[in-house]
């Protein structure tokens, strides 16, 4: 018998018991819907978290410090040590093999010239004082590069906007900082002026004379306009670069060149132009290239580390979650596979005589088995398609409901469910395999029926 004829007979049988076929198919659909829905939830959550982390710049950013000193407890340390050992035959692994390369503007330019590098900028944290409403306090001001616009913690700015331009005297505050300044209405700070001051190394810079470590310096005050207030993202690692007071990178660089960040360096008389940075942040265009760029920077004689390894760990954790969700989702599918077995056994019981006739006129075991397997597979495939549609629909509904709740709680709405093509194909294939497995026992039973007894069956 040809395969087309097997299909013909199988479809004919399915049509004859429409109600039973559709109920069984619905059972499979619910099973597949629960399985696909669960995995879809796992994938959706992973995309939400990993996607947000990736956007935050945690995994595509490399922190470079000078020399090959080991920074305990951070990724990249092991590699750095291994490189040191390799060069020195295992002796004094913490001693740099090459003299520490200076981490200055030239080095930053070299990093920026590497392929896959999106941006390279010094990590600046300048001790400054701020004066607001008559009170003066100390804070670290961070230099924020233009490339951070719309990324990470700056994806959404709670009040106000990002810096209007890269060089202007504008400042952004964290919500906590804003609340310290004005507990009742932090939003009202936007547009107001915040006076920031730093200790200038030049004694005659035109500010108030002051003594730092016994050396006379000048405190220079600058008026900054508060443009934005940023809320910390509850997602872990999403707050890269966030600091209580944030000013444009160019402003920070200018101040850094003049300010006494490190009194000792100042005492040693380092000229502002050759001032070295304590750290440089290198942003890579994709997390996939992080390791590559990191290795290149190390080869230049710097210490570089990233949290790329942590991302791999997070992905592994989500894989486990996916498997767990899939197992829970499989319960319904297991139940519906019993439904297939039941339907097929019933159908064989009803059609025993027909099977006897088919065998008496020359149908082989294979022919009979084929017909029943195709019936089971058809139930599985139709159930699979219907299940994916059903799972998608229910997921959409839950997503709408959940997002209304999340937004009411002050969170950001997103897609909790994700249905990638591999999940659609995988669920279909799984439905097919499950139905074939479920159908194999009844089909075998039908194929082995004794024709004489089958013909006597009423």
């Amino acid at each position: 018998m040809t395969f087309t004829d097997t299909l013909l007979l199988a479809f004919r049988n399915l049509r004859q018991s429409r109600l039973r076929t559709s109920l069984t198919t619905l059972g499979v659909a619910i099973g597949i819907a629960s399985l696909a829905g669960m995995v879809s939830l796992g994938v959706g959550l992973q995309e939400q978290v990993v996607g947000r982390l990736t956007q935050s710049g945690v995994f595509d950013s490399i922190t470079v410090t000078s020399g090959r000193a080991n920074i305990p407890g951070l990724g990249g340390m092991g590699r750095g040590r291994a490189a040191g050992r390799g060069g020195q035959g295992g002796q004094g692994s913490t001693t740099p093999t090459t003299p520490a390369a200076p981490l200055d503007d030239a080095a930053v330019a070299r990093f920026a010239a590497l392929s896959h590098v999106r941006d390279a900028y010094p990590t600046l944290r300048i001790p400054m004082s701020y004066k607001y409403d008559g009170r003066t306090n100390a804070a670290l001001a961070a230099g924020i590069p233009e490339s951070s616009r719309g990324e990470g913690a700056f994806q959404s700015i709670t009040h106000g906007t990002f810096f209007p331009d890269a060089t202007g005297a504008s400042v952004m505050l964290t919500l906590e900082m804003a609340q310290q300044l004005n507990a009742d209405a932090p939003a009202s700070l936007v547009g107001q002026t915040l006076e920031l001051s730093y200790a200038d190394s030049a004694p005659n810079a035109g500010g108030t004379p002051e003594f730092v470590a016994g050396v006379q310096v000048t405190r220079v005050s600058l008026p900054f306009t508060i443009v934005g207030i940023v809320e910390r993202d509850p997602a872990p690692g999403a707050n890269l670069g966030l600091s209580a007071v944030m000013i444009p990178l160019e402003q920070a660089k200018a101040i850094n060149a003049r300010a006494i960040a490190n009194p000792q360096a100042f005492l040693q008389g380092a000229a502002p132009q050759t001032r070295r940075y304590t750290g440089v942040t290198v942003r890579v265009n994709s997390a996939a290239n992080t390791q590559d760029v990191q290795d290149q920077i190390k080869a230049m004689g710097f210490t570089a580390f990233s949290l790329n390894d942590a991302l791999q760990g997070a992905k592994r954790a989500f894989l486990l979650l996916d498997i767990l969700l899939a197992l829970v989702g499989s319960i319904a599918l297991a139940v519906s596979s019993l439904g297939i077995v039941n339907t097929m056994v019933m159908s064989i019981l009803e059609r025993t005589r027909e099977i006897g006739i088919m065998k008496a006129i020359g149908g082989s075991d294979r022919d009979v088995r084929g017909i029943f397997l195709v019936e089971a597979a058809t139930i599985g495939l139709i159930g699979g398609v219907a299940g994916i549609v059903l799972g998608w629909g229910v997921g959409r509904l839950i997503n709408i409901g959940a997002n209304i709740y999340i937004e009411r709680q002050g969170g950001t709405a997103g897609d909790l469910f994700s249905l990638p093509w591999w999940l659609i194909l995988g669920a279909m294939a799984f439905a097919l395999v499950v139905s074939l497995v479920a159908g194999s026992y009844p089909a075998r039973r039908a194929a082995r029926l004794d024709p004489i007894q089958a013909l006597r069956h009423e």
Partner: protein
Amino acid sequence: MGGTIVKALDDLTLDVAEGEFVALVGTSGSGKSTLLNLIGGLDQPSAGSLEVRGRDLARMTRDELSLHRRNTVGMIFQSFNLVPSMTAVENIALSLMFAGVPRAERDQRASALLEAMGLGGRQRHRPKELSGGEQQRVAVARALANQPPLLLADEPTGNLDSRTSREIMDLIRTLNERDGKTIILVTHDAALASTYARRTVTLLDGHVISDTAAELERA
């Protein structure tokens, strides 16, 4: 069943030549239907041998038996055994389907067979829309579909009135005399057997108790 082994056939030897019309006669339980089922390849003997056209059915695999049923024998039953959900043409085409005949050809062949049975206008009718005699004609057409040399009929007139019975038996005789089909007919009706068959074998409790061919030889 119940641990008791029932020997349906025992110490039985029978030769049937090609082109013969043999009737197997006996009371119920004599083993005549069992013998027919063995020849038809629906069952296999637990001991002994059964050769049809030089091949021992006792040694055949399940697949070989299904080929035997498909190509070598055609079976006609008392209860017609048509698939109730299929039309007359579809029932006949079903046996051609197992033989792998393409759709267009099997529909055409099935129609031609129905025509030959005098059922030209009944092609799209389902079994329950046909009379007993018409159903049995469809069954005969189905048995002939794969052109087997051997036709096995198990009480073919058991569910038919006397007039229709005669029509069916006439048809079977024609198949023997005109087309040279070997016929083995199982019946409990000795009169029917002697009217149509050229040789009657009588069975009792699994043994042959009389064979008209042997009597002829002795005479």
